[in-house]
């Protein structure tokens, strides 16, 4: 039974990844203009669709669009955890490097428990001030992520108060030039106000609590201008008594083939999820930008 459900799922994911890669290649080979910002200053696509690391939104805006340019990105991501599989597809638009609009569709397959959960995430991020490379304080942005579960029955049964919710966050990112053995170091810190359980896939709020502030941070080293390795940490609320929720962390490696295509691989530790202990696994994400 597992095999029958998994095979088309894998096929769909591969198609999606291949599609993204094709978009990237077509865009790159057609000589479509990349934005003028320096490669990799748009980060990659976080699992919630906003430009960032993998787990956390960063203050940078997606693609490499600069002050008089538009940029667009598309991405597909997949996480293979012990008892779950998360698949995300989405896109974002960068308007003049001032505003980023994003959309992501998340689907998690509950391989042990059975069934699946899906949510849509609509994001908006506004650059408040600064620049990740040129400003001494880096770049600062504020954003919202509005999340809507496709079918809220399971989260509600588990005790979630709502089937939709909105996160708000403030984020700062800064590249430190030649900070470690001559390599550039990327720092990011994000403060998020949220009531989302497991990012929203288990609903919003619950019998143990509601909205609260959580902190997220990441540090990465650009081993080369194309290749960054680092780690990310994301605090989480713990609102549902039926299953303890724990903080998320990752070790990541992202490679920028060009301004158009990047591939991120990561090792995830997402802690307990919905009563199933210590969910760890791998993560792959492919992004095309133009």
């Amino acid at each position, binding site marked *: 039974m597992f095999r029958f459900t998994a095979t088309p799922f894998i096929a769909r994911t591969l198609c999606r990844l291949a599609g993204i890669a094709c978009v990237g290649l077509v865009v790159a080979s057609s000589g479509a203009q990349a934005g003028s910002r320096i490669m990799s200053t748009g980060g990659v696509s976080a699992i919630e669709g906003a430009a960032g690391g993998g787990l956390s939104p960063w203050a940078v805006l997606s693609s490499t669009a600069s002050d*008089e340019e538009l940029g667009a990105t598309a991405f597909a991501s997949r996480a293979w955890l012990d008892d779950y599989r998360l698949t995300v597809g989405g896109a974002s638009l960068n308007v003049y490097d001032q505003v980023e609009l994003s959309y992501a569709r998340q689907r998690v397959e509950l391989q042990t428990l059975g069934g699946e959960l899906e949510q849509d995430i609509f994001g908006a991020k506004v650059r408040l001030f600064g620049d990740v490379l040129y400003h001494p304080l880096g770049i600062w942005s504020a954003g919202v992520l509005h999340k809507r579960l496709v079918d809220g029955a399971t989260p509600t049964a588990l005790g979630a108060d709502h089937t939709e919710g909105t996160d708000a966050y403030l984020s700062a990112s800064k590249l430190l030039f030649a900070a470690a053995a001559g390599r550039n170091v990327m720092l990011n810190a994000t403060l998020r106000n949220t009531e989302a359980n497991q990012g929203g896939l288990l609903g919003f709020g619950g019998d143990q609590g509601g909205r609260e502030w959580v902190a997220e941070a990441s540090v990465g080293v650009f081993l080369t201008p194309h290749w960054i390795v680092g780690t990310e940490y994301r605090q989480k609320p713990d609102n549902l008594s039926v299953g303890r929720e724990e903080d998320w962390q990752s070790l990541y490696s992202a490679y920028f083939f060009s301004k158009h295509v990047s591939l991120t691989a990561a090792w995830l530790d997402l802690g307990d999820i919905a009563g199933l202990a210590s969910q760890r696994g791998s993560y792959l994400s492919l992004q095309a930008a133009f």
Partner: protein
Amino acid sequence: MNQIPTRTYRTLARRALQAAALITILASVGGCAHTAPSTTLYERLGGENGIESIVERFLYRVADDPELVGFFANTNIDHLAGSLANQFCAVSNGPCRYEGPPMERAHQNMGITDAHFNQLVEHLDAALREENIALGARNEFLGRLAPMHADVMRYQ
């Protein structure tokens, strides 16, 4: 029953992850301290000759860029090359003092956008690569020039 091994495993894995992160940071910082070259950035850019070559390659690239070359229509290129070399020398702790105009005045009302600035940075980085400047020196040099963005953009 199997709670204990699972917990232990998880705790160990988590500690390992955090330790790995910490070690990465410490190793990079330590590595920085150990490999910090005793030579100045000026020397790592190739000294006077190196910087002259960098400036020449940089200006050739800018001249070939239709979106940037217009800014230099009324510029004495020899004078600009000398002034840039002088500035690069001073910025990299070489035996020079920059005596050109302040950045904000040199770029006043030219209509420079972030896009132009970024393009210029890419040309400079490409020139550094073509001159085989090591990554560490490139990063450090670009890092010292980066704060000039605010001055260049002040009166646009």
